[in-house]
């Protein structure tokens, strides 16, 4: 199984002392332990890949002091799901264009994965993904947040996200004038 999944990471993982283990244990800020596929962790997180390659993974649980247990559980869940998922047809593109641009649209399961999260859990996950250097998970979570903003007026967006309008009336009017093309159909 490891051979199947390993591929590019095989060399990196070989450097690690506990090469016979195919999982790593991560410890949240509140002391909970989570196991995650070593291959998936190394593939999806540049920070974890660096720690695995550098041998700084602790068998008794690598401390991730910036990440709470709920967010870490989601990270681990995402890595494990990713390890098991087969790229869907959507990933290969739906048009006849060559589609060499980096793939940015989330897959169906990734969509569902972020859709079920509460507002706070979503932001905890974005921050965790950012901290761990998980580019793909950042894409998926940022995409979700952008969808929450799409087609909404500034007022509606402020309401969804509790953004405090700290502009003066004059400043706001200035912005609306400046970018009238973006506002005129409000």
């Amino acid at each position: 199984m490891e051979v199947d999944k390993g591929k590019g990471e095989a060399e990196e993982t070989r450097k690690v002392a506990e090469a016979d283990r195919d999982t790593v244990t991560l410890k949240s800020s509140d002391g909970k332990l989570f196991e995650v596929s070593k291959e998936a962790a190394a593939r999806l997180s540049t920070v974890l890949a660096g720690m695995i390659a550098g041998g700084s993974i602790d068998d008794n649980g690598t401390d991730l002091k910036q990440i709470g247990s709920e967010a870490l559980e989601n990270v681990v869940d995402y890595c494990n799901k990713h390890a098991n998922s087969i790229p869907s047809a959507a990933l290969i593109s739906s048009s006849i264009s060559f589609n060499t641009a980096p793939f940015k649209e989330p897959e169906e399961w990734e969509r569902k994965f972020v859709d079920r999260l509460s507002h706070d859990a979503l932001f905890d996950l974005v921050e965790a993904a950012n901290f761990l250097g998980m580019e793909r998970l950042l894409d998926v979570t940022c995409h979700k947040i952008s969808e929450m903003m799409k087609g909404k007026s500034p007022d509606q967006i402020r309401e969804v996200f509790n953004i405090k309008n700290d502009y003066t009336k004059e400043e706001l009017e200035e912005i609306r004038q400046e970018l009238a093309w973006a506002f005129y159909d409000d």
Partner: protein
Amino acid sequence: MANQPPAPFVHVDAATAADMRRRGMDPHELEQSARGVLKFVYMCLPDAPAYAAPVLSAHSAPSDGPEDRISALPFALLRNIVSRLPAKDAARTTALSRRWRPVWRCAPLALADAHLLPGALEGLREPLRADTPGLAVTVSRALAAHPGPFGAVHLVCGYYGDAARQRELARWVETFAAKGVQELVLVNRPWPLDVPLPASLLAVDTLTRLYLGVWKFTNTSALPQRGAGAAFPHLRELVLCAMEMESRDLDFLLAASPVLENLGIVGSRNKVNRLRLVGQHPVRADLLERSGRRRRGGHAVPRAARPVGIQDERRLLH
């Protein structure tokens, strides 16, 4: 109401229709073939940037507490989020709060004229000639307001037949050259079929991906072949759809694109009937048939093994 209302042509303009009738031909046939060509061109284009099908998952948990989590994210993530929004939505984020004011201008612009015509991407309405002036005003303003660089600009809904539109297009292309754009998709909706592309396109040296549809390519015979100082040093993907161009123009483009990986030629209207790939680049060339038969199946076949065919669209346009 006394007069018979003229048939509602979308593509064929009045002069062309009158000319055809004078010559005893039916302009409806021309209209149909223009429609067919355009439909095929659209199938070949990459998706509009920042577009996700009507938001299915728009329901989203309301914020749990009074905290503003989003504004607390690092600036780079705010840019990431804003760069995924259609241009109008993205620009409007500047009005959220002071924290947000600089974000839009620091995120690569994603501009698609199809986003500016509600219903166009869903196929609910067709971009009409009468839409072009309004679209053009918005495009001009968006391009002027954003400092660049632009990530992706897709202009596929306009009719560029008259001289004023062409001058405006030339100014946009000069803006692309000045501010930088990575992905550019330009389609002219007929009629006419031979609208010249602005020559300044050859000065847009930041391009990585270029799709052109239904233009007359710049006459390159007078231009020096630029070997070392290539016009498109970063261009990896070039797709030419229903273009009027000569073989020498294609040779010029290939010589100007030293890192080109993918080349697509979709229905050449003119004289590109030989393709000289003398091996200086590892170019993967696809010449697609107009039938669309291979449209979906193509993915099952490794690209290099895709069958190659070319069909002259002259047949369809006469």
